[in-house]
């Protein structure tokens, strides 16, 4: 497996996937910091400043990640459609399903790196500004982990979709729609947010407004864990069915 994953990284070089993941990092950080620093509750003498940063990080992912994850997945998978890569890999012993798993693993590593960097950048801004309250380590790491799990689930969805439907319009269109769904999910009752994978960005929130007051709370770990189990099962099911198809 590791040789196939290394191969995927080699393939990414000419596709500028690393650049796209860097764009993901930049856009999420840009939107998030803008939302956090211009929030009227951002004030370094109170604990609410950490909460605005936590909220900003969430909104950066909500707005930017759905579309950009779709783009990243489509880019790496579409190369196989264009160059007859499925057949070529199959003749060298790598099934289409195995190829999809390798792609998810390779892209997942990059996305995980970007997510950790975003989280570190936000913490660095908070520490640099000199927020008086102590850094909320538990909620911070919890939010980072939840955002990463949701992003990986979306990535898995888009890898399968891009492999299954050759017309990349479908995946990209769904990504754009996903951004809208993710945005709506931050405002609707939580049971609606559970219905789509994009809604789980809203469930990851570690801070928010409760009755007009900015407050910190724990992310919905159990629900995010449920999403990861469902996503893993569906991804395994689909990639296994790819293995049995004729290419």
């Amino acid at each position, binding site marked *: 497996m590791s040789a196939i994953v290394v191969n995927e990284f080699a393939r990414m070089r000419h596709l500028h996937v690393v650049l796209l993941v860097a764009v993901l990092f930049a856009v999420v950080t840009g939107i998030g910091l803008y939302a956090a620093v211009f929030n009227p509750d951002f004030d370094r003498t109170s604990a609410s400043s950490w909460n605005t940063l936590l909220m900003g990080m969430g909104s950066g992912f909500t707005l930017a990640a759905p579309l950009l994850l779709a783009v990243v997945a489509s880019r790496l998978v579409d190369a196989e459609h264009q160059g007859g890569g499925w057949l070529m890999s199959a003749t060298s012993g790598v099934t289409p399903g195995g190829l999809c798993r390798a792609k998810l693993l390779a892209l997942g590593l990059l996305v995980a790196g970007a997510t950790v960097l975003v989280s570190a950048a936000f913490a660095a801004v908070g520490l640099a500004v000199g927020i008086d309250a102590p850094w909320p380590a538990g909620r911070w790491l919890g939010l980072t982990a939840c955002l990463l799990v949701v992003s990986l689930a979306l990535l898995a969805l888009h890898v399968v979709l891009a492999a299954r439907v050759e017309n990349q319009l479908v995946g990209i269109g769904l990504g754009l729609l996903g951004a*809208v769904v993710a945005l709506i999910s931050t405002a609707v009752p939580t049971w609606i947010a559970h219905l789509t994978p994009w809604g789980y960005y809203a469930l990851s929130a570690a801070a928010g407004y409760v009755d007009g007051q900015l407050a910190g709370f724990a992310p919905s770990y159990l629900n995010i864990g449920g999403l990861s189990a469902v996503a893993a099962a569906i991804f395994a099911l689909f990639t296994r069915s790819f293995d049995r198809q004729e290419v």
Partner: protein
Amino acid sequence: MNALAAEFSKLKRSLSWAVVVLLPIVLVATGLIMTLIDGRGLEDGWHTLWMRSIVFYGLFPLSVGIAILASLVWRAEHRGSNWNALMAGPTPSLQIIIAKAAVISVLAAIMQVIAVVTTVALGMIGFGLPGFLPPEYLAISLLIILASVPVAVLQSWLSMQMRSFAAPVAVAFLGAGFSAFLLVVGLDAAIFISPYAALSRATQLGTATFADTGDITAGVIAAIIAACLLLSTLLAAANTVVLERADART
């Protein structure tokens, strides 16, 4: 003219209708759903309705939608040996560029019409607003259609250069996001450099949001029209030169 007719026939069964119809309806409805959820009413009737439905749509989804359409229009040329057929054909480069941009612009115009129809329908049926959409917004819609042209030309160029479907869409998302930021900080002159900024600026006209003051002045309208004409001409000319020098691929 033949080149244009050919482009339209290539669109058949291309799923472009899905973007053209679904994108404006979903985005306009989203703006209004958010309004309903927040419990804020339409304090200023049709004006608030327009602001909630069209301004968010213009920030980045509209540019991304045009980018998707451009990728779709160029997709056929990047498949099989169609690129070489394009290189070997007798159609002048300028005609190809204009035909491609025109098809994308027509689709963008239809999108705007659907966005306006959705807004009016939701306003009259969904919210029971009295009267009709104020006529200035119909005029602004024409301006939005015009402002879609430079974005269409630029995305057509990007989709011509990049064989990937997704990469030009990412560029549009990034460009539109950055342009929105420039408009927020009050750099109005960005509309002369970034087509995305010109398009976003046109959607904000008369709403007092972001770069807009709420007054629709002749100066602002003239600036947007001038920016659109300038950017469209420059980008189309540059694109033609690039295509003229392109060669067959093996």
